[in-house]
């Protein structure tokens, strides 16, 4: 008998949960501004989440999926990408989207039930969030194919959760990306739960990174609550992709501290003790401890940052609440490039509401 293949996976961690340096400090981390930017990104994401959840709880937003506890993964991905790369997100990447220039107002409009929230003014080519779990990974493969065909030095980054890796389309995406050798990076934000189903019931595999083996692409693990490690690992993968060295898969080990969405109650399927233990790995505290211990962050800095973020988000919430809904005929206006004749009458009915003279059901 002979061995056909052997595999091993790298695990990257730079800071431990206490904020102590335990790995090699990436080059970018020598610059205070870069570190503060990452910290600001995570704080902004967490405050945004809190505002969104509070809006939902008071009946002013639809169902919302918070990324509480996963900010390092989300922001680390954003920081690793260039402006002309393309993000293909799931619904828990507000941190990445905000970093890339999607506005808090746009994200609120989306969850508040308005398609205009997907018409991002800044990352014009980024995909809108994908609700069908894992289905978006294929779009990254196809988008990366376009980059390769056009000889553009750009990369796509798809983000999905641990649940998504159980689906066939995820495998099809990494498999085709491998065959085509396209500049795509697949990040699995492993927050340990797919709604109520824990990872051990999701797969018998020892890691999700090893799913890369079947597709013949590199896979690695990173501490998903260590923003320095996430940024470093994703940046490495993006650089490889841009250099024509093909796709890769990164599993970011994080933890969902909140409910799946505002419609979920996580206490039905996990113990409070488990969650409170995980709070000790809070990614925001981790980087703040590192910054403070290095003398790079003061209480005054913290207060100033919170004030700035609060002002920005309050303004976004006000703008969201002041945005009137689209007119009913907007349902038809982007269905096709040009409205087919067959739909003209339906559009007229929707706009006029003449059968709704009692005001409809609303």
């Amino acid at each position, binding site marked *: 008998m002979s061995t056909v293949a052997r595999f091993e996976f790298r695990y990257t961690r730079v800071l431990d949960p206490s904020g102590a340096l335990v790995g090699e400090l990436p080059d970018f981390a020598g610059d205070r501004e870069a570190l503060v930017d990452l910290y600001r990104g995570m704080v902004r994401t967490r405050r945004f989440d809190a505002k969104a959840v509070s809006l939902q709880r008071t009946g002013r937003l639809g169902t919302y999926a918070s990324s509480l506890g996963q900010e390092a993964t989300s922001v680390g991905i954003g920081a690793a990408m260039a402006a002309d790369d393309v993000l*293909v997100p799931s619904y828990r990447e507000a941190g990445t989207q905000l970093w890339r220039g999607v506005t808090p107002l746009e994200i609120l409009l989306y969850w508040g039930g308005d*398609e*205009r929230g*997907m*018409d*991002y003014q800044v990352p*014009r*080519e980024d*995909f*809108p969030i*994908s*609700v*069908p779990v894992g*289905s*978006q*990974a*294929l*779009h*990254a*493969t*196809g*988008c*990366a*194919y*376009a*980059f390769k*065909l056009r000889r553009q030095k750009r990369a*796509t980054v798809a983000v999905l959760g641990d649940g998504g890796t159980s689906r*066939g*389309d995820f495998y*099809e*995406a990494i*498999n*085709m990306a491998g*065959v*085509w050798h396209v500049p795509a990076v697949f990040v699995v934000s492993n927050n340990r739960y797919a709604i109520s189903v824990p990872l051990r019931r999701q797969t018998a595999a020892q890691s999700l990174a090893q799913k890369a083996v079947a597709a013949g692409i590199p896979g690695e693990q990173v501490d998903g609550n260590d923003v320095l490690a996430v940024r470093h690992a994703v940046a490495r993968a993006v650089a490889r992709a841009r250099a024509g060295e093909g796709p890769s898969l990164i599993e970011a080990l994080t933890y969902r501290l909140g409910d799946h969405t505002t419609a979920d109650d996580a206490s039905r399927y996990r113990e409070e003790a488990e969650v409170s233990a995980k709070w000790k790995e809070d990614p925001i505290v981790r980087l703040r401890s590192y910054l403070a211990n290095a003398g790079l962050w003061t209480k005054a800095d913290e207060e100033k940052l919170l004030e700035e973020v609060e002002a920005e988000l309050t303004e976004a919430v006000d703008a969201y609440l002041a945005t009137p809904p689209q007119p009913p005929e907007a349902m038809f206006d*982007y*269905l*096709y*490039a040009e409205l*087919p*004749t*067959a*739909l003209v009458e339906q559009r007229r009915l929707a706009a006029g509401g003449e059968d709704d003279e009692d005001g409809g059901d609303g």
Partner: protein
Amino acid sequence: MAEVTLVGAVNMALARALSDDENVLLLGEDIGVDGGVFRATEGLLDRFGPERVIDTPLSECGIAGSAIGMAAQGLKPVAEIQFMGFIYPTLDQIISHASRMRNRTRGRLSCPMVLRAPFGGGIRAPEHHSESTEAIFAHIPGLRVVIPSSPTRAYGLLLAAIRDPDPVVFLEPKRIYRVVKEEVADDGEAAPLDFCFTLREGIDVTLVTWGACVEDTLAAARELAEEGVDAEVIDVATVKPLDMDTIVASVARTGRCVIVHEAALTGGVGAEIAAQLASEGLLSLLAPVERVTGYDTIMPLLRLEDRYMPSRARIKAAARRALAYG
């Protein structure tokens, strides 16, 4: 001008589209070296190279999903699914993403892709190779569903589908892939979408159909003429969205309508046409709308498939019933 079959016209249109627009590319299983199991893509790999004529892994969902990613970047992918019976893994991608990309992003991104598949029975193929499930796609807002029924229309409609800025499901009636040859000019002229073609004018009854049934229906109309019945034959061609104006106007003249399709009866596109005739053409109807379709059964294996499909005899019998009514 070349004399070509329907599948030859598909090949000609694909070659034309690849020549005219560098954003067009083809992907699918066995479409490259093998030229496609029906030879629809024969010779295209040699002419346009492996970057634009892609032999994909056996991965239907992957073909559709990656095409969406390409289309969002402004490429115009033409994806082939080998048989309609294997198209179902694409449904999540087509329904959840392709059909709604433009709507979700308020036009920021769009999905100018074509999903081609041979469909329908009658070629004594194995299980899962003979279904006609166009109604599944016709139900989905944001899609176009286009079905050619002659070499000329295959060429023009496929060019139109590829140039269309929105996703098109393009279903090719494989039973008549090689039945008829026509002179087709490779002039790059597209045929109109969302438009019914009136193939035969008549005053007694309107026969409405699409796909391979067009050949049977035209033959039935010729035989009915020998009985003194003057039938109008309409090829719907775009089954989503429907050009009801042409159908309603025809029935206003004839007062009678027979709808013919291979797909099962219940919830078929014929049901939508009949419902719209009932609401828009009721006063001109002199007889109930007849439907000649596949039965509400599983498409049988090849020994019984001829008994499943709408035959000329069934089409003529339905026309006679409509004419005898009242």
